[in-house]
């Protein structure tokens, strides 16, 4: 017996697929399935998080609907996957945030932006808020660096702790020993597989999104998004180092934090727009309709982070800087604290699933 109806259906599908195996060259899910003959909840959660939702197995399947065997692996694994996010959430009482995730994230983002605007209005003189500032330390006239660092450091730390606890729950559920996560060769393989999105290409043919033609560009847009995010992260890190070396923001346009941030920001604009576009075009039969909001909210937050960051770069010498800053750091703060409770977690679960898969492959 399985915990949910999605898991029961996933078990049925894996039994069908394991008798067929035509898709084993497409991705990691099917070879991992073939290593098993029966599927526990943990096994199914592992397979679901290994699935990159490339869609190829649906259009390649002779048993997909309207066939009576009704095999729809991408949709059912998407359902299992989002249920697993909820089950692993830490602390558990916040797991409900996955239920109406789009709404939750929107509200948190709105409240966060409002808090920064109100904070600036209450604690800063209007002339400071609407004044034009130039030169080093301009941002910190609105919010002192140490306050900013403490607030964002705490939010980030919280996100890391909560996500780590989720990963721990996942790891326990799938029954994998902790030691696997420090296996160098498995980690390295997973880093290569994740950083190239090896399994988001239909086995080499390409992904499918709208129909059986491999015209999907999600892999490219995901690269824009992911590497854009990493560049922004690098930009922030560089700026932090600069600060403690005594160089205060804002920095000139050619300086490392701005260059990294601008490139990353462009990625985080192009990527999420592309992914949203593909999402709107996606064949509904492949999607877990209930989690549409979660996916859209995540992409929207990344897009807003970048958009407001770019706006800040353009408007930083004008009187609009104060409100733009409030908007930007409000969005970023909301992004941080909601990381453990939204689509952001997919990267972590998928990455560690790939670590386990690398280990299983090697031991085969």
């Amino acid at each position, binding site marked *: 017996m399985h915990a949910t109806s999605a898991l029961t259906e996933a078990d049925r599908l894996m039994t069908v697929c394991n008798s067929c195996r035509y898709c084993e060259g497409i991705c990691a899910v099917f070879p991992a399935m073939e290593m098993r003959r029966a599927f526990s909840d943990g096994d199914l959660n592992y397979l679901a998080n290994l699935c990159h939702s490339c869609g190829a197995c649906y259009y390649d399947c002779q048993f997909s609907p309207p066939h009576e065997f009704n095999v729809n692996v991408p949709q059912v694994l998407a359902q299992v996957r989002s249920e697993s996010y909820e089950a692993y959430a830490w602390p558990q009482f916040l797991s409900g945030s996955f239920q109406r995730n789009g709404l939750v994230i929107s509200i948190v983002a709105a409240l966060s932006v409002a808090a920064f605007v109100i904070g600036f209005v209450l604690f800063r003189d209007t002339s400071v808020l609407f004044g034009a500032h130039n030169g080093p330390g301009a941002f910190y006239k609105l919010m002192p660096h140490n306050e900013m660092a403490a607030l964002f450091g705490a939010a980030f730390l919280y996100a890391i702790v909560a996500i780590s606890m989720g990963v721990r729950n996942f790891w326990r559920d799938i029954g994998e020993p902790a030691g696997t996560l420090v296996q160098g060769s498995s980690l390295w393989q997973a880093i290569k597989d994740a950083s190239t999105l090896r399994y988001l290409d239909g086995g080499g043919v390409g992904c499918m999104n709208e129909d059986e033609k491999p015209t999907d560009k999600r892999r490219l847009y995901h690269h824009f998004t992911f590497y854009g995010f990493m560049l922004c992260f690098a930009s922030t890190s560089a700026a932090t180092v600069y600060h403690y070396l005594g160089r205060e923001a804002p920095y000139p346009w050619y300086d490392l934090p701005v260059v990294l941030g601008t490139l990353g920001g462009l990625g985080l604009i192009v990527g999420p727009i592309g992914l949203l576009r593909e999402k709107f075009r996606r064949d509904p*039969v492949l999607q877990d309709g209930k989690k549409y909001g979660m996916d859209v909210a995540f992409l929207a937050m990344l897009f807003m982070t970048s958009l407001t960051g770019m706006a800040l770069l353009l408007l930083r010498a004008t009187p609009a800087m104060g409100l733009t800053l409030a908007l930007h750091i409000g969005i970023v703060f909301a992004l941080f604290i909601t990381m453990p409770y939204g689509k952001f977690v997919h990267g972590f679960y998928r990455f560690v699933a790939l670590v386990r898969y690398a280990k299983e492959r090697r031991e085969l």
Partner: protein
Amino acid sequence: MLQRSSPAVAKAHVTQPLDPERRYDVLVIGGGNAALCAAISARRSGASVLVLEAAAHFYRGGNTRHTRNMRCAHDSATEILTGPYTEDEFWEDLKRVTQGHTDEELARYMIAESKDMLTWIVDQGVRFQPSLGGTLSLGRTNSFFLGGGRAMLNALYLTAERLGVEVRYDAEVIELEIENGMFLSATVKEASGTSTVRAAALVAASGGFEANIEWLKQGWGEIAENFLIRGTPYNRGTILRMLLDHQVKQIGDVTQCHAVAIDARAPKFDGGIITRLDCVIYGIVVNNQCQRFYDEGEDIWPKRYAIWGRLVAAQPDQIAYIIFDARSLELFMPSLFPPIRADSIEELATLLELDPAKLAETVSRFNAAVQPGTFDPDNPDDCATAGIRPAKTHWAREIDVGPFYAYPVRPGITFTYLGVKVNKEARMIMADGKQAVNMFAAGEIMAGNVLGQGYAAGIGMTIGSVFGRAAGRGAAKYARN
């Protein structure tokens, strides 16, 4: 039938009405591997091509949907093939499985052409991968399609459409106009109505007639009602019937087909690969009188699986039961339906509605006949019986470790061999021995030219690709002149 609406499936493939004035160079009837290879090769030869597929978009491609590999000769190992498979070895294999019931000239031509198929089919967008898990014994001889037969079809259709081949779905040909071995036109029934298509040449690649139970009965009698059809319900042989009625020469007889023993619980049509059972060699097979009837351990399974359909067809009520014990449960690939399980042979018999005392007696007589040996699940071993008939010559182990398991099996018809006679060009031969003027055939509809009986894994696809390409080339050449 469970139905779930899928926009991709339901998406109307909006097609303009057929232009009654238009005359195509080549008309291809059918939509599987053979048809698409013909359409693509004709188009690449410069012909205008119309493909009429009787099935809906989802079911396009006939039995190709259910295939997974093709058998091609090659002189050395490749990225996906573990070793060479020479033309001579291929020919020896074909001679053995058909017991000589093949046309040597055509077969050798097909085998020679198959070498080039490995690259030609890749050029049409199809991708290969090494043999699938559980099919290691085919790793040297057979090239597996990445994603299986439907992925292959998707690639072929995409290529055909990009080349400008016109494809119509839900387009059933209900009449052929043929005069003295010359195709003139076809009448097509579509949702919008009936229309006439004219073309300079015809390629018939519309499959066998295995889904036409009435036709099967002409050879098998009433027992054909108990057969399961593994593939598409669309292969009713209507085009084949029309061609034979128009004096195209028939080849093969009604009862010859690729038939395996599949799970009796499978649906009547289209159950595909997942109802197959690979456990015969590890147990015993009894009929509903609880009697064994053939050496279950004759040879490794891939060499023998294609005889079991006919063996079961010869049993009372066309049903049999594979019986094995806990020791064998995980030695073979899983399949769709779980085995029926019981703690004793008698209890198992009751679940199968067999006579418990008789089954117990058959099992204990078998167990008593098992000789000592070293069991090797992957190779013909020295575990055999002595003193019973039929003997079990390999993998004979006592069935005595509970729980006990059974799979009920019925004949599963994959495809039929009765078809139209063709020459090396894939051109049809008329009943009077003359060549047809402008009619070609490829795939199951002419498989009997090469396969008089028996089967070797992946050979149906070789026939389809090789003769499909030849038919398209020949039809385009005729149309140009």
